[in-house]
């Protein structure tokens, strides 16, 4: 009976993380003062929700062995590999096992397919860059695209690439351009593309789950802020803010992709102009919450 309670508690915890918890975090402004820890918090909540969901299923399936979570799970796994797998399973056991297996399979396969697709597209993008970009000796580690529209970006990968268009070179002065390059180096340095790799497809796949709806967007903004901080440690924050305004105001825009990105730019600019954009206590709070989200299901498994 105790394991059934554990299963219910873990399932509830998972729902809280994916639902109200995610909605709350997506509106929290204090994480902007500790963007890297904020990203960790989102990751911790995602991992905690997955672990709790799987744990709930396993706990339900292991109930009949009356040997606690660890013992029951071990016997369950043992029976799966015995001559008569799943013999004598009841309704609860079957339900729990199915839930746990489904979570694993759906997440694994679906995310895997999207990640492979993304990695392939990045590879083609990289191959194309190899053929058409040019370099400038005064901007080492940066490649230029001969296009008059203003854009700057970092292509993630084992060796991330920083790309700037001619339009950006004409729009910004030398120091502003350096602030932008430092920002992109921040993305490259911390491999932010890897962080976003499993996230990008979530919002289109599970739009009815608040976590999937909010996490990619929020994490994207937090990573931009983290890269802003990286740049701020190497060149003046005001230059980066000015570059951001120029780029956002004069960049070529596809007609459908406005609003969400725009608010992000405004938040980043006002953040950069603050006297002290980062805060230790916010970082500590976000890290502790993120750790707790993972530790709850782990300790539930260990203690029951």
């Amino acid at each position, binding site marked *: 009976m105790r394991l059934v309670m554990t299963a219910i508690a873990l399932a509830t915890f998972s729902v809280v993380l994916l639902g109200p918890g995610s909605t709350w975090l997506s509106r929290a402004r204090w994480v902007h003062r500790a963007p890297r820890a904020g990203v960790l918090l989102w990751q911790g909540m995602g991992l905690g929700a997955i672990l709790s969901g799987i744990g709930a299923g396993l706990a339900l399936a292991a109930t009949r062995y009356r040997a606690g979570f660890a013992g029951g799970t071990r016997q369950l796994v043992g029976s799966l590999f015995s001559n008569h797998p799943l013999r004598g399973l009841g309704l609860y056991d079957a339900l729990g096992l199915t839930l746990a297996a489904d979570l694993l399979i759906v997440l694994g396969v679906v995310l895997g397919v999207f990640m492979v697709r993304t990695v392939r597209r990045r590879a083609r993008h990289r191959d194309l860059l190899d053929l058409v970009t040019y370099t400038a000796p005064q901007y080492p580690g940066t490649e230029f695209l001969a296009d008059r529209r203003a854009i700057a970006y970092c292509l993630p990968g084992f060796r991330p690439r920083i790309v700037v268009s001619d339009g950006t070179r004409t729009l910004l002065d030398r120091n502003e351009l350096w602030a932008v390059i430092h920002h992109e180096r921040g993305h490259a340095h911390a491999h932010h593309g890897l962080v976003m790799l499993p996230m990008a497809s979530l919002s*289109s796949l599970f739009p009815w789950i608040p976590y999937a709806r909010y996490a990619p967007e929020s994490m994207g903004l937090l990573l931009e802020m983290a890269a802003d901080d990286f740049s701020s440690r190497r060149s003046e924050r005001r230059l980066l803010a000015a570059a951001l305004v120029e780029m956002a105001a004069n960049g070529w825009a596809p007609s459908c992709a406005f609003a969400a990105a725009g608010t992000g730019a405004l938040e980043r600019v006002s953040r950069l102009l603050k006297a002290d954009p980062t805060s230790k206590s916010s970082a500590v709070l976000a890290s502790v919450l993120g750790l707790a989200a993972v530790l709850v299901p782990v300790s539930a498994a260990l203690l029951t």
Partner: protein
Amino acid sequence: MRRLGDLERRVMDVLWEAEAPPMSGRDVSDSLPDRAYTTVLTVLERLRHKDFVRRTTQGRVHYFEAADSRDAYVAELMIEAMGASANRRAVLARFAASVSPAEAQALRDALQLGSGEDHRS
């Protein structure tokens, strides 16, 4: 690795600047005198597998030409980078997305407020 990439680029440059495409492997190789004929052929085949080069055969001779112009490839990169395609965040991290004129004004106001003194128009 990087050296092969550089050679791919030079081969594409030859094909893009060709006066009378398509070119035979021998023609391409003649334009790159510091490289062996077989090396150039290998690179051409690699580029063909990546769909950057098209090959046609007349008699027993293979002819090569660029699948698309340099400008078309730059445009493809820009479109993907500008986020016209879905799934943008995963492909790359763009510095700043474009905003509407009203939002641009709000941004300029914020910058002016934050800096107090000087401002460029």
